[in-house]
């Protein structure tokens, strides 16, 4: 395990945080295990790839993917999920179905080849960090993860919408009984979570590349992050992402044949002692 691999772990953690933060917001407030979150990530990546390739602007790719996936999120929440609210199994099955549909549509439109979102020249090349030369783009990924964490923290703690979301995670029925239209909060949260999946898709699409089944891989990692961190907790998602990111690096380097076990073994052990995750609360 050297510094380069450690940095890789931290960088991967930053990407995981971006994706998992949206996942945990939706899980925490709406109580929906959105198994289409990975598909939204992949679709966001494809959107970003197409827009960035067409326009030549990586930034436009990010904005377009976030807006497109946010819109997709609104349609999913307002058009489908609202009809199965309160029915956990139906919600899960519905999101699995949506994931299948998105994947197949993506296969029809973009085919089965692997794509990499083109990044601007300024993010090419490497910077020296201590004794190692590290790709600039990966430093950008880390910075993006930190920025998303800070912005989300500000949103959740310094804005009324954020306070309402946190209150809703604690007790959605009471939020409604206090005169707040919880449906609107649900919609905003779903929009935000979906936009974060889209952002993750573009950033990850330039880092891990895009291909069919990339959604399932990121989804499994996100699930681990959220389960470790605890439902609805941003600090939990950050720590969970760091653990999973670093364990993934360790696993790949030191026990390549046991790479998944290195992540899910400790996760299972943690759950044995803290069934609700590090920061999880019972309802």
């Amino acid at each position, binding site marked *: 395990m050297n510094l380069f691999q450690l940095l890789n772990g931290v960088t991967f953690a930053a990407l995981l945080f971006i994706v998992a933060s949206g996942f945990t917001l939706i899980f925490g407030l709406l109580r929906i295990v959105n198994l289409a979150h990975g598909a939204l990530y992949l679709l966001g990546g494809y959107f970003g790839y197409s827009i960035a390739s067409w326009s030549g602007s990586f930034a436009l790719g990010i904005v377009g993917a976030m807006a497109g996936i946010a819109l997709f999120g609104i349609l999913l929440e307002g058009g489908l999920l609202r009809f199965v609210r309160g029915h956990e199994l139906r919600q899960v099955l519905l999101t699995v179905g949506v994931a299948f549909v998105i994947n197949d549509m993506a296969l029809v439109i973009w085919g089965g080849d692997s794509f990499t979102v083109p990044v601007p020249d300024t993010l090419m090349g490497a910077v020296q960090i201590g004794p190692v030369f590290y790709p600039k783009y990966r430093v950008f990924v880390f910075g993006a993860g930190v920025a998303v964490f800070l912005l989300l923290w500000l949103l959740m703690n310094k804005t*009324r919408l954020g*306070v*309402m979301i*946190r*209150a809703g*995670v*604690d*007790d959605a*029925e*009471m*939020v*409604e*009984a*206090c*005169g*707040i*239209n*919880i449906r609107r909060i649900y919609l905003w949260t779903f929009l935000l979570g979906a936009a974060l999946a889209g952002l993750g898709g573009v950033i990850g699409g330039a880092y891990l590349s895009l291909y069919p089944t990339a959604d399932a891989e990121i989804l499994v990692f996100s699930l681990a992050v959220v389960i470790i961190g605890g439902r609805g907790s941003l600090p939990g998602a950050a720590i969970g992402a760091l653990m999973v990111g670093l364990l993934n690096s360790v696993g790949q380097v030191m026990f390549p044949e046991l790479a998944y076990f290195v992540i899910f073994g400790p996760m299972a052990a943690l759950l044995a002692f803290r069934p609700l995750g590090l920061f999880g*609360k019972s309802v």
Partner: protein
Amino acid sequence: MLEVKDLHSYYGDAHVLHGATLEVNKGEIVALLGRNGMGKTTLIRSIMGLTPPTVRAGEVKWNGETISGLKPHEIASRRIAIVPQGRRLFSSLTVTEHLTMLKSPRVKEGWTIERIFDAFKRLGERRNHRGSQLSGGERGMLAVARALIQDPDLILMDEPSEGLAPVMVQRLEEVIIDLGKTGLGILLVEQNLYSALDAASRVYIMETGKVVHSGTTAALKADMSVVEKFLGVHG
């Protein structure tokens, strides 16, 4: 004024309210008494539009408008607030956030945050503590404050004194009486009979989903046989 007419509410197939009827006039404190499991909380939830239970017959009117069937936030926006059973504070929100979430600190009308902290000094001192870090009395006060900040005309209070030390029950009773003097209507569900009788001007007693007695507090105090009959308390 609040009018509940012949309300039938169900939890699934279980028929819990069998035609409950009551009224709360403007600015009146009315106590709703009854043993556990008689439907008091079900009635409060039905008035507030909270589901479950589901209301299958009868209606709730508020200032002449039928509000049964509306969503809880629509009912709340008609100036009906609730202090629910068990308080149900938001455990991850600070005292201040409980209030700013519902009313911007910039609003200077009605119950402002300053006015709340003035009325409940203890909450002001604990303003940066989270709901989960408060003592029982402070939690009770915050639950009342969370209702007040919505500038209600009517508060539905479901056992606000539950789990409080006697001195806090006394303090809460004073708060309720003071609020009643400001013209606020209160429907007070209480296990603590004497506290309820001190605060309320009229009393309803529920048994098995029906209102079986209604009258003034004075009449009830004069003839405690009703209390003995329905509440099993010896006056």
